[in-house]
């Protein structure tokens, strides 16, 4: 579904991603793991068209390098950004409606909102509450639900566990597992290696902007050497 080859992301003279190649197949959950500064977020920002990048990005076998973020969203790529970034002044429902900005067909919107509320019953209870008053876990649920409102076929999650209590992280990952079971293709960026490998089919280990290891998630999880060498844990 997604194929990246020789991706280079540079901020001025600083190379954040140095020739990364990776592939995600339909229906798969792929984890992109690595320490701070490995280039994980730069990679997915380039995927979403939010930072300029060199290299080839193919989605459904068609190059998308020259497309704007808006056009990529319309193709079915959704990025749920790091740090949740919900619109704190708007209600849960308004946040969801904004997530559907790329969907001109309003008749399907109610259906999509119901789908999100089915997936996250907590949000349904708080539909008219201002998003700034939600807990961190609820904001993360809202951020994921809002990304789903654009009807993506390919969902990119950036650090969904960031800043959440372990118990809440459990809940969020249960939801991600549910999404995966429903057939969603997921690229998961995580620092929480254990959690990411437990849910993913395959994983790429990134350090200093380059690929250090790749393989089946279960194999990587069973290989403490790779984990400790690159992830310090």
């Amino acid at each position, binding site marked *: 579904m997604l194929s990246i080859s020789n991706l280079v992301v540079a901020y001025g003279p600083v190379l954040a991603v140095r020739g990364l190649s990776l592939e995600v197949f339909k229906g798969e959950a792929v984890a992109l793991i690595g320490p701070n500064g490995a280039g994980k977020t730069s990679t997915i920002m380039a995927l979403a068209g939010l930072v300029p990048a060199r290299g080839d990005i193919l989605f459904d076998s068609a190059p998308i390098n020259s497309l704007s*973020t*808006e056009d990529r969203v*319309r193709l079915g790529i959704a990025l*749920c950004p790091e740090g949740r970034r919900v619109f704190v*002044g*708007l209600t849960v429902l308004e946040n969801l409606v*904004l997530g559907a900005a790329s969907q001109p067909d*309003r008749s399907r919107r109610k259906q999509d909102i119901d789908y999100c509320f089915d997936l996250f019953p907590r949000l349904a209870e708080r539909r008219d509450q201002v998003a700034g008053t939600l807990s961190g876990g609820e904001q993360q649920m809202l951020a994921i639900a809002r990304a789903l409102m*654009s009807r993506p076929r390919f969902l990119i999650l950036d650090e969904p566990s960031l800043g959440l209590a372990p118990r809440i992280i459990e809940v969020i990952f249960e939801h991600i597992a549910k999404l995966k079971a429903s057939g969603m293709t997921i690229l998961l960026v995580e620092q929480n290696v254990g959690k990411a490998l437990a849910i993913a089919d395959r994983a790429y280990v990134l350090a200093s902007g380059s690929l250090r290891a790749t393989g089946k998630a279960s194999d990587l999880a069973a290989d403490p050497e790779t984990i400790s060498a690159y992830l310090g844990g």
Partner: protein
Amino acid sequence: MTSTNQSRRRPFLRRAVLGGLMTALPMLLVCIAIIATGEQWMVRLAYAGVVAVVVVVGLQIQMGNSGGVSFSHTVFVAIGAYAVAILSVPVQMKKLIIPNAPFGLADLSLSPAAAVLVALLIVAVLAVITGLVIVRVSGIAADILTLCLQIIAHSVFMYWTSLFRGSQAFFGIPQFMTLPAALAVAMAVIIGARIFRDSPWGVQLRASSENLLAARCFAVNVTRLRLLAWILSALACSIGGMIFAFYIGTINAQSFYFPYVFLTVAMLILGGMNSVSGAVVGVLIISIGIELIRNLENGPVLFGIELPTLYGLSGLALGAVIILGMVLRPAGIMGTREFDDILFPRRPETE
């Protein structure tokens, strides 16, 4: 059938129009009371207030939706005023004031209605040209750009003397506007601003000013929406300039320069830049406040005590009010709320 379809497709429209009428209500009541007194000098002051409402609401369309401060909105006020002036002054009068006008403008005189239409077109074109540059820049750089635009425009007004008469007044503009007519214009502008603010475009634009990255992740075309807000803001501000010119009959570039820029920005920030009602409240408070304080400047006798004359007191008080307002209510008096949000709390659309 059509109307139900219409309201289902645009559930915000009814709210925006009715809410807009409520937003306009305080201005309307004050002006009706003033008209009832029959005092001509008060009517003239009220007229200036209504012009300020149009300009500050125009400014709100830009600042309240796209975020950031704009210092160039009075450029469009001036362009609106000069455009209708140059187009509508009778030919005989032009021989006297701008005999050497370029583009054959010295021999052209349009009806006020035609002049307004042409002026709006000119403003729209200039807004697109300036907007294409400004909407691509965010944050403080954008604020500075608007400041530069203000200085450039003022230089043009001051030194293109064959068209704008430089530092001399431009007079002879037909004076047909009345306070009730200006009120009708101001109400239309207020309702227009409310419709934009509450529309999906307005909501998307406000969300993008809260969090640009997140908005872009959901395919919100921020550049295009910012450009739209910029153009609408310019048009509204220019309408303020037009109704000003058609009432007062004489305009001068100096009167649209920095003192007016800061006065109108202060009105909006005090009232609350995130709401149209805030714009109206800010104009009312500062306009009425300045008039009251101006009386104090002349050293009136209050409660048997003769007060000293204190010229400049109104400027001092204006500054003090804004400082107090910013300390006590940093988001402005209205914050993000409209009058109707307070009286009839919003139930989010359920669709």
